[in-house]
C-alpha cells in the first residue's frame, strides 16, 4: 500500500509504485507532448482572455504533468545527489551538462521576452516568454523522460 505522496519523503514519492503507470517510455513521451501542448496553449489563452487569471486554468494541469514527468523518471532531476544511486546521479549530471548552453540560451530568451511586459509588450509575447522559461527549467526532465529506455522488467 502506498502512502500519501504529499506527506512522505520526496525520494519515496518519486519511487512510489502508484506512479508506475507513467513510467513506460510511451507514457513518458505522451507526458512530454502534453507538457509542450500546455506551454503552447498558455500564451494563446493569456492573449485571448487578456487576463493573467487565466494562468490559473493552466496551473492545475501543469502541476499534474510536471509532477507525473518527475515521477516517471523517479525524480532524477528533483532529488538530491545523496538520494540517487551512482548511475542515476551520473545520468542526471550528464544531461544537465549536455543541455547547459541550450538551457542558458532559453533562459535568456525568456528573460528578454518577459521584460517587454514593462513597455506595452503584448500578452502573447509575455506569455510566450513564460512558456520558454518553463521549457528552460524543465528541459532536463523532458529530455530524460523522452530518452530514457524502459526500465528492466517493465511491460
Amino acid at each position, binding site marked *: 500500500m502506498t502512502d500519501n505522496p504529499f506527506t512522505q519523503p520526496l525520494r519515496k514519492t518519486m519511487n512510489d509504485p502508484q506512479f508506475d503507470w507513467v513510467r513506460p517510455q510511451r507514457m513518458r513521451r505522451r507526458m512530454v507532448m502534453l507538457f509542450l501542448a500546455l506551454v503552447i496553449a498558455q500564451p494563446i489563452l493569456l492573449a485571448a482572455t487578456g487576463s493573467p487569471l487565466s494562468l490559473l486554468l493552466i496551473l492545475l494541469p501543469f502541476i499534474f504533468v510536471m509532477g507525473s514527468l518527475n515521477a516517471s523518471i523517479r525524480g532524477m532531476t528533483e532529488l538530491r545527489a545523496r538520494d540517487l544511486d551512482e548511475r542515476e546521479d551520473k545520468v542526471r549530471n550528464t544531461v544537465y551538462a549536455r543541455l547547459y548552453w541550450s*538551457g*542558458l540560451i532559453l*533562459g535568456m530568451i525568456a528573460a528578454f521576452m518577459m521584460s517587454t*511586459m514593462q*513597455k506595452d509588450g503584448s500578452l502573447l509575447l509575455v506569455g510566450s516568454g513564460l512558456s520558454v522559461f518553463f521549457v528552460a527549467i524543465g528541459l532536463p526532465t523532458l529530455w530524460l523522460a523522452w530518452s530514457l529506455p524502459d526500465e528492466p522488467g517493465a511491460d
Partner: protein
Amino acid sequence: MSSQSVSPSLLSRRFTVLTVYGGYLCLALVVASGQMDAHIMPSIQALIAGIMAWSGVWILSRMAPHWRLGQAPDAELDERELSMRLRAYYLAYVIFNATVFLFLVGASLLMDIAKVSSVNYVQISAVLWGVFLYGWTLPSAVIAWIDRGPADDE
C-alpha cells in the same frame, strides 16, 4: 594531479568568484540606473561592460586547475574530475535559471518602483555581457567554490 600544487586555497577561490561576479553586478546596476549617461556615451558604457566581462573571464581562468575542470574536453579528465565537472554543470544550470527568475522578479519590482517604461541599448548590453561572463565561467566557478581537494583537506 600536478596542477593541484598551484591551486589557490578554497577561501581565495571563493573570494575571487565573489569579487568577479559582485564587481560585474555592481557595474551592471550602475549602468542600468543611468547614472553614467550624462558623463559617458552609451557605446563606451557598453564597451566598459564588455571589458569587465572579459576581465572576469580572464581572472577566473587564472584559477587554472578549476578552470580546466570546467572547460577541458572530457577526454582530458579522469573519472573523478569528470564526475565533479558533471555535478558542477548540474548546479550551474540550476543556479542560472534560479538567477533568471530572481532577475525577472527584481527587475519587475524595480521598474514599477522607479517607473521605468523602457530598456535601452546600454542596459541590454550589460545583461548580454553578464550572461556571457556568467554562462561561460559558472561551471568552473562552481567547481572552484565546492572543490575541497587534497590541499584543503589538510
